[in-house]
């Protein structure tokens, strides 16, 4: 199965990169842009075919390595590979 994992900074955590991107978008004339936050996107293929077990495995990966849960939230979608 394939997991598409999105890692985002928690609300309230300062995101200077998001701010810089927002500033660049404004400079390009996109005046209506606000609240830009930068995150990460990670694709993982797992050999596990049982969705429930695959979910548990993906969550362990996120907790142990892929996200730093002090500052980041994670979400994922699972699909048949």
């Amino acid at each position, binding site marked *: 199965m394939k997991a598409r994992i999105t890692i985002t900074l928690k609300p309230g*955590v*300062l995101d*200077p*990169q998001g701010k*810089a991107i927002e500033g660049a978008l404004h400079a390009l004339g996109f005046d209506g842009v606000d609240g830009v936050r930068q995150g*990460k996107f990670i694709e993982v293929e797992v050999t596990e075919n049982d969705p429930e077990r695959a979910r548990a495995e993906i969550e362990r990966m996120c907790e*142990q*390595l*892929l996200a*730093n849960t*002090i*500052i980041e939230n994670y979400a994922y979608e699972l699909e048949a590979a």
Partner: protein
Amino acid sequence: MKASIIVFPGSNCDRDAAVALRSAMGSAPNMVWHGDSELPDSDLILLPGGFSYGDYLRSGAMAAHSPIMREVVRRAKAGTPVLGICNGFQVLTEAGLLPGVLMRNATLRFICKDVLLKVERIDTPFARHYTPGQVVRIPIAHKDGSYFADPATLHLLENENRIAFRYCEHDGTVTDAANPNGSSDNIAGIYNETGTVLGMMPHPERLIDPAQSGTDGAKMFSSLVETLH
């Protein structure tokens, strides 16, 4: 005193740290490759600065799971002093030995310059050759050095007297202007609960000899040698 320096792929301050330790100890530290699972008998473990694993994913995240780190965590929990400098500090937070996280500098820039630090505490193996409240000059060189922790953790660090160094002015006052990277409460370094694990962004190993224009970093290594023999 026996010391071990852990070398990760991408470490680049390991040899500077070795020079600093050798000049303080009179003998060479062990250089231990991250892929090893055995750590020699050590009175001190040092995690050096650099860019372990190219800072992939997050600074220090991959190194925190290197084979040797299991043993480092075990020894740290058993009381062996551990000093993490710069990337070493990032590794210590990712490994869960210190709370919080080092985030991208508020300026988004890599900052390489001398900064002034207020010594907040001297009753540890690392700091006894400093004086309380002393202002020392030590260089920083990082892009991910903005210390972040939630308000409860910051409160705990303050209450338990676990802040090691704060970025400050010449007279020791802690101001926003003296904060180079946006760190919460100007924190430049913190201790664990027992004062035996120290993580700090500044590089004491870079100012140990008058030829380097200062020796404020040398006192950390002489403190360690006197405490740990």
